[in-house]
């Protein structure tokens, strides 16, 4: 006879076919290894199932005391397997994004941040695992904001508002929309190439980039829908424009890619969308440019935030950013840059008429847009620590394709 006190559990009618193991497990959890649990119950299969279940989980089973009249089916002696399983377990960092690990280990892998991880399992290689490289404290806030401001392309845009444009103005809109679609396409692909490489420990960054991709997906949808709203064909796509976008997609360094895309490209794009919002000849174009502009601003904020953080810690970052601009400029120096059809279409939209004075005014407005883009790029470069004169020189090297 054992001296250890026995805890009792009455399963009543409940059998192992209907979840009796939950009650047994719960009762055993309160006992130390070697602790004894007297189980009684009236399910006819209990005498077979209880020992079979215990055997598979490393618990020992003893027959009830001879002469036992309490209806005890068996006494379960708690084994050590449940504790052994959690030997060497560790928390995958903090649950909340405060005090994040500066370099989370590969073994945390896809474990939820803050979860208790059983030892073992795969070493998942997420090569973007340096907090200073990917993180920005504003990421959780930006993600929440981005998630709250998702809009439905079907209902957020007045697709059915009546309007009629002269055919050459409509053609200019279609040309600009065509250009926007291919730029948004690149803006979706660039973060997509990094999302799977970022350690899930920095999950708010992953979430933010995922929403950013969803933003770009909607932009592609609304710009193509506007292009085809009155006709059946898109405009032209220049080889130089595609070359410019391809250099963005080809950048495999996360910091450099977000610098080129978000800080320089999308930054300039915000100015372009603002220009289109002001000069749009119809309510649909006006609305979709405004919606896209709100999203793009958020993308720029995140790109700036994590690069500013990184630039503070790594004085050599600016050298790499500078080199990236030069490299991209060199790669594009022999290309035409902005599609001439796009430039002309912007002038047409800004002109609003075909009188020479209108065209001249439109031309001035597009030049003012380019100046504003340049000024914006310089401001952001200065915020990243470049001297104003160098910021001006670097901004001038930015692709003529805007993005």
């Amino acid at each position, binding site marked *: 006879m054992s001296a250890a006190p026995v805890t009792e559990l009455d399963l009543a009618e409940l*059998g*192992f*076919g*209907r979840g009796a193991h939950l009650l047994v497990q719960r009762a055993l959890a309160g006992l130390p290894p070697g602790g004894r649990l007297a189980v009684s119950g009236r399910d*006819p*299969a209990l*005498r*077979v*199932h209880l*020992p*079979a*279940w215990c*055997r*598979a*989980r*490393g618990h020992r089973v003893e027959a009830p005391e001879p002469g036992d009249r309490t209806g005890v089916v068996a006494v379960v002696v708690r*084994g*050590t*397997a449940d*504790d*052994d*399983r959690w*030997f*060497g377990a560790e928390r995958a960092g903090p649950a909340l994004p405060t005090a994040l690990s500066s370099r989370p280990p590969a073994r945390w892998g896809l474990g939820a941040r803050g979860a208790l991880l*059983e*030892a*073992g*399992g795969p070493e998942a290689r997420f090569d973007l695992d340096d907090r200073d490289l990917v993180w920005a404290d504003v990421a959780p806030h930006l993600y929440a904001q981005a998630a709250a401001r998702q809009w439905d392309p079907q209902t957020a845009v007045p697709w059915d508002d009546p309007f009629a444009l002269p055919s050459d103005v409509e053609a200019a809109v279609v040309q600009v929309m065509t250009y926007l679609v291919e730029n948004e396409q690149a803006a979706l692909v660039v973060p997509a190439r990094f999302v799977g490489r970022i350690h899930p420990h920095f999950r708010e960054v992953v979430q933010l980039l995922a929403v950013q991709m969803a933003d770009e997906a909607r932009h592609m949808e609304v710009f193509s829908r506007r292009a085809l709203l009155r006709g059946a064909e898109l405009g032209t796509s220049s080889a130089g424009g595609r070359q410019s976008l391809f250099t963005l997609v080809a950048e495999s360094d996360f910091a450099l890619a977000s610098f080129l895309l978000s800080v320089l490209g999308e930054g300039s794009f915000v100015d372009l969308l603002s220009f289109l919002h002001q000069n749009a000849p119809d309510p649909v174009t006006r609305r979709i440019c405004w919606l896209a502009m709100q999203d793009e601003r958020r993308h720029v904020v995140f790109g700036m935030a994590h690069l500013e953080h990184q630039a503070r810690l790594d004085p050599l970052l600016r050298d790499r950013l500078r080199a990236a601009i030069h490299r991209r400029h060199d790669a594009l120096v022999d290309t035409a840059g902005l599609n001439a059809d796009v430039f002309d279409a912007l002038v047409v939209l800004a002109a609003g008429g075909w009188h020479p004075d209108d065209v001249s005014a439109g031309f001035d407005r597009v030049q003012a847009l380019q100046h504003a883009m340049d000024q914006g790029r310089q401001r952001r470069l200065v915020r990243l620590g470049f001297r104003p004169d160098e910021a001006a020189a670097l901004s001038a090297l930015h692709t003529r394709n805007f993005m």
Partner: protein
Amino acid sequence: MPTPSVLMGAVAYDPKVVTIWEGFRAWLRGRGLDFDFVLYSHYERQVEDLVAGRIDAAWNSPLAWLRAQRLALANGTTVRALTMRDTDQDLTSVVVVRADSPVRQLTDLAGKLVAVGAVDSPQATLIPLGHLAVCGVEVDVRRFDVGVGLHGDHIGGERDAARALMAGEVDAACMIDANHLAFVQEGTLTPDGTRIVAQTAPYDHCNMTVREPESAGVQLFGTLLLGMSYADAQVRPLLDLEGLRAWKDGRTTGYDALAGAVDATGFYSPDGRVTATDYRP
């Protein structure tokens, strides 16, 4: 001194066997044992190779253990159960009827049709039929020969027997206790759909069979197996796959019921020849 070595045989009843023994192989080699394994498609050749000295150890079914013992005895040698899983000890088999069956007790099964597993399944055929025979209950048998030669390691025969019971094709079905629970939990049997009318006495299942006297490699093998801990993250997934929490010292006290059934049915001769007429592994 050369590194102690062991060549072990295992039966490939499931692809996971490769994962398990590849994993154990790496773990054992990391601890000074030059361990390797060969896979067999059935137990009979594995046992013959063990007794002939072509392998050092055989991860044996209970039926294979009995045959190894008989073959060894016939050639004047002995084998021994080095280790076994904690889950190999004190198993039972049950005979199950549908809940609405008029069968209330074992003797009511006389003349009824009883579904069993494969011809060579200790737990779903030989032991429960032996139990019925010992109790003097004569029944008609419908066998579900899935994975013949695997000595019941393949669950298919037992599951088909359970399905036949639920479909009303047979009056009763035989299975190991843990599979009755598993079939209820997976939905092959409904929770209140069956009634257990008989349970065998406890018996033991697999063991790691080795020849005596043991080589230094086999001795080290036993020591290392017994030292495997469920707290070790490297072997825990392998122990989970192999269905144990800990290796135990081998014991041979739990094979009497099976030995009785083997003799009664003439499955093997006393000198270890395969004498079952309709058994072709």
